[in-house]
């Protein structure tokens, strides 16, 4: 029985090593899109979108991508750290990291692990400490959700700024395009006795 547990856990760890944790993904990305994206690095054997139960809805999605072997997983992480990799939209890239056992909600029990618990008596000096700890937990969750909110605001800001930059770029290109189209560039070139050059 013990051996079976260990075997199962070893198998699970092997799966974890083959898996890449990808986040900053748009919620609009479908399973097919993500699969084809990572099939470029090898064979994707399983995909799991991690649910976002409590965070704001605007949060990027995270997904666990299970590859066929460990090397493929390493290739994904390597490439994605070197280059911005864009899935189902740009220019915001996705991020990749190695998966950890805690990212699987159905992870098997670690062999040999044992849980103990006890109720603390209110007269115990530990009791106040434990109470304080409970408050801390709530405080920390509140802090984190505040952080997330801030981060989303920042993201909005950056997004807006980039949209503007992009629009300006488009405008510039449109302008140049137009100059070529209506012959203004050519006329100018001949007027200043320059060689006409082709932009395209």
């Amino acid at each position: 029985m013990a051996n079976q547990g260990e075997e199962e856990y070893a198998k699970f760890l092997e799966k974890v090593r083959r898996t890449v944790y990808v986040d900053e993904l748009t919620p609009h990305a479908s399973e097919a899109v993500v699969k084809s994206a990572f099939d470029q690095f090898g064979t994707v054997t399983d995909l799991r979108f991690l649910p976002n139960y409590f965070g704001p809805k605007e949060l990027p999605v995270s997904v666990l991508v299970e590859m066929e072997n460990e090397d493929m997983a390493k290739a994904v992480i390597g490439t994605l750290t070197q280059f911005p990799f864009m899935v189902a939209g740009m220019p915001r890239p996705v991020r990749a990291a190695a998966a950890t056992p805690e990212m699987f909600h159905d992870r098997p029990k670690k062999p040999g692990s044992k849980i103990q618990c006890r109720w603390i008596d209110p007269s115990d000096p530990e009791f106040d400490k434990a109470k304080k700890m409970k408050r801390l937990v709530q405080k920390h969750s509140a802090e984190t959700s505040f952080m997330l909110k801030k981060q989303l605001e920042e993201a909005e800001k950056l997004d807006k700024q980039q949209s503007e930059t992009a629009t300006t770029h488009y405008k510039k290109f449109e302008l140049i395009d137009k100059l070529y189209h209506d012959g203004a560039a050519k006329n100018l070139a001949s007027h200043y006795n320059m060689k006409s050059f082709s932009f395209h």
Partner: protein
Amino acid sequence: MEKSAEVDGFGFKWGKKRGNGVENKDVQFYESFTYDGSEYSLYDCVLLGVASKPDSPEFFVGKIIKMWEHTDQRQNPRNVELLWFFKPSELSRYLQRVQDVLPNELFLASGSGVGLTNANQLEAICGKCNVQCISKDKRNPQPSSEEIKLADFVFHRTFDVQNSKILEKIDDKIAGVDVKFIFNRTSCEKKASAVQKVATGVHGTAHSLKPNRPSTSGSVRQNERNARDLYGHRKSDYGHKKEEDNDFHKQLARKKSAVAEERSNKDPGRRDGELDNRNASGSRRNDCNGKKDQDNEVENQLRKQKSRLAEEGCSRDSYCLEDLPRKKRKLDGSVAVSKHTEEKRLSDANYRRDYGVFDVTQKPHVTWEEDLGSAEGRGTLVLLQNLDPTCTSSEVENIVYSALNEQCTARMIERTSITIPHLGEALVIFKTADAAKRVIKRLDEGCLLLSNGRTLVATSAKVNPPEMPRFRFPGHIKPRIQIRREMRNAVATSHCAQRNTIEFDMGMEWRLHRDRFELACKRIFEVSIDHCFI
């Protein structure tokens, strides 16, 4: 091989043959079999455990409509086909407008499609159960009020698995089974067909409600074991205990409820011992050795429960509570073995018939997501925080069971880049809103300390509905109409940005943004951890 030995351990025997399979000569059908001490025949109702949740008391109810054995050499050759009954909890979405659901009512699967029937391994069966049809249909031999009282479950409506509808009428044929086998059997049929049918009537719920609920002797055996444990526990009291042991043997002959009452009336020391014993066996099952001696509250709770039970004179129930999961585990053991052979089996295309063997888990059980939705509506959803992040879902269920005495379904929340790394969180669904409230209150007023100095925090939870957001994802710029055509290809395929593009620069800005956030998170978490361990 291990498998067959295990099965033989349960005293397996086939009954009357029914003729070979038409399309497959290697299949032998039967009309009855004996397994683990009880005889099962066609159209009997049985209980099955949930393979995916070893320790949960969840079970499924099905009616055997076929039983067969593969005569070629293969593992797990014995199978049964079951027509399912649904519990109201599985159909909660469709029962919202149905008012008159009885507490022990089931819904027979009907129509056609997924979820009507499944082929299961015979060894997955963990007990018989008595299901009476209380339909007023004139084709149905009406059960007497006594029979209804003795029944574990009753049904009179069906659930159409195809259209997901509750139907009042029962069709002439369900899953190819004539309706007369679905209704109650007529009294002469009863007499002729089954000794065990009568037995069910006599023993009533004792035999059938819980999977292999201990019969009188079983429970006495357990008492005996308790007594022995106790006996080992207190060597100093050797002589005294011996006397009591003898005394105990005399009691074996008596009814077990009497045993419980008498024993609980014995000296308080003995009673404490018994409590300790209960604790010990409870924690053994849950792989969780609580420091029970310090655990006044739980002990009080147990004592209260115990004395209440003794008062009612139905200690039987308290034992069955303990026995239930243990029995389950036996079932799960066998199913786990079958999982091991799964790959091998699937690779062998010849065994196509066997493909559905693992369907114990594949019954159209409402998924976690659906469960979650309904639990939130009923107020049975609770968020547990400050667990060990490495805890598993079943361990959470065990903690809740052993420390709070409540049954639940738990699911650890996956760690992502935005969750707090040192806080394990789990969503837990309780059976009733009262149980959920009780747990929240108890964890709020008292402090449950987990093994590594964590105090469990419970709050009632509200989760995001699983729907596609309609907004535009910040950071994904939609190209304007004129250029969309040339951009489309770029969007459809995922790619790495080249260094000489604007896209690359923008991507880098996003990375910077992300790194900044991660750094901030890291700082916050460092500070939090410092706080926690001061």
